[in-house]
């Protein structure tokens, strides 16, 4: 598998943030955005192509997980909470 380019990583990052921001629940939404941001920040120094490829694969799986959970969340949407 070809090494992921910088632009692929950035694109995945943007997708994850975009999908995370769709969570209807305030707490899940803020957590997902925060966690994605912190995970990319923590791994910004990773150079090893194998490690990058593994992280990219994990990220892609996380995108589908977020999408599935966002649709479930939308089915059972509830009132907003007081700080929103």
């Amino acid at each position, binding site marked *: 598998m070809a090494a992921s380019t910088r632009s692929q990583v950035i694109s995945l990052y943007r997708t994850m943030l975009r999908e995370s921001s769709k*969570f209807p629940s*305030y*707490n*899940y939404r*803020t*957590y*997902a955005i925060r*966690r994605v941001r*912190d995970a990319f920040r923590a791994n910004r120094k990773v150079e090893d192509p194998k490690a990058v490829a593994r992280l990219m694969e994990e990220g892609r799986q996380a995108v589908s*997980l*977020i999408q*599935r*959970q966002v649709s*479930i*969340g939308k089915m059972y949407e*509830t*009132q*907003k*909470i*007081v*700080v*929103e």
Partner: protein
Amino acid sequence: MLSSGRTVSSRLLRPVTCLSLRLGSDGRAASSLQKGTQQPRGGKKTAGLTAFGRKDETSSKDMWKRELEKDELRPLYMDFQATTPMDPRVLDAMLPYQVNYYGNPHSRTHAYGWESETAMEKARKQQVADLIGADPREIIFTSGATESNNMAIKGVARFYQAKKRHVITTQTEHKCVLDSCRVLESEGFDVTYLPVQKNGLVDLELLEASIRPDTSLVSVMTVNNEIGVKQPISEIGKICRSKGVFLHTDGAQAIGKIPINVSDWKIDLMSISGHKIYGPKGVGALYVRRRPRVRLEPLQNGGGQERGLRSGTVPTPLAVGLGAACSIAQQELEYDHQRVSMLANRLVQKIMSEIPDVIMNGDPYQRYPGCVNLSFAYVEGESLLMALKDVALSSGSACTSASLEPSYVLRAIGADEDLAHSSIRFGIGRFTTEEEVDYTAEKCIQQVQRLREMSPLWEMVQEGIDLKSIKWTQH
């Protein structure tokens, strides 16, 4: 002074009548709760505490129970010790087993059974066992920490009862541990309820001195559910191992939040709960050591599942959920801990810098930061909870709050009656945000100031009267 005395009585009387009315409307529950808390601690008791459910943290709030309107805002959640929301990653792992893979994990004759069994064993091995450094054969799935605690305490004591008839626990344990011990007492066992020190920690010398030749089990919880103190389990483990006594610990509030290794800490039995670690409700686990072997009498007999210790079909989706929650907790332990500590500090700093006479209950260092128990002097905890209706909080004791008795945990650490009445527990978790903490702190400061302004006690303290010197009534 005379006139101020009159206002004192009129102000003090009002809440009392209002409370007695509330009790009247829910008479049965309230009286059974009161009966439970009035039981003496060390002496002879009958099983009277069965009225409490483990972590059934909402029952006592029935008196203000009201459902939200459709367009009303939801309160924010600050009660992570009662239960936690399920992590979306946990739900994602569980759902396939709620829909398509419905086989009985104990069915050995077809693919439906095999796929469920594989999932269950993966949860047991790679997830639950790995989190605590155990062997997968040492993990028994149960319905939750209450069942695990019951199984461990009654099971061990009854198995070894021919030679050993003494059990040691502490006064600050969860209700289900204390209640299991009460049952053992009614069966003729001897139970020592160790007092704790002012900081909530157990005195190791006293513990060691309490161990007798006929002691079979010591049960001490790792992290307290009310005040968040972390008991020195590894030291207790050393003492118990050297004396040949089994150590059980209720790890419901500790698992996945602080690093735990059952071999390093020499734990023989440990209770685990799913819904305290962002997993599903209705599932838990009991760790039972194999070397040296701990034997216990099962509570539930039947098909012989879980090595005969807990018969009954293992609920695959819940077991998978518990497994996923454990593996996420392991991955996120450091990240979550850092964040929870930061938020807890932020909350405590904000509140303490704005209002005087706030006391933090429990040891300031030996603790899990996500459980903050504060006493607001001269304010009644229940009134503050009612005033903070935009925040889902609980007073220190969830089980006993309807009884108007202060929490038994706070009493055990020697808190004054009035401070024990004025305590609130703030639970911070994985999904708590800075905005929520700030909102909670701000509301709390505002309401404490408002309630204190109305309080005759506060007025008297401002005038320099020592409240302890006052003789309130003649009886």
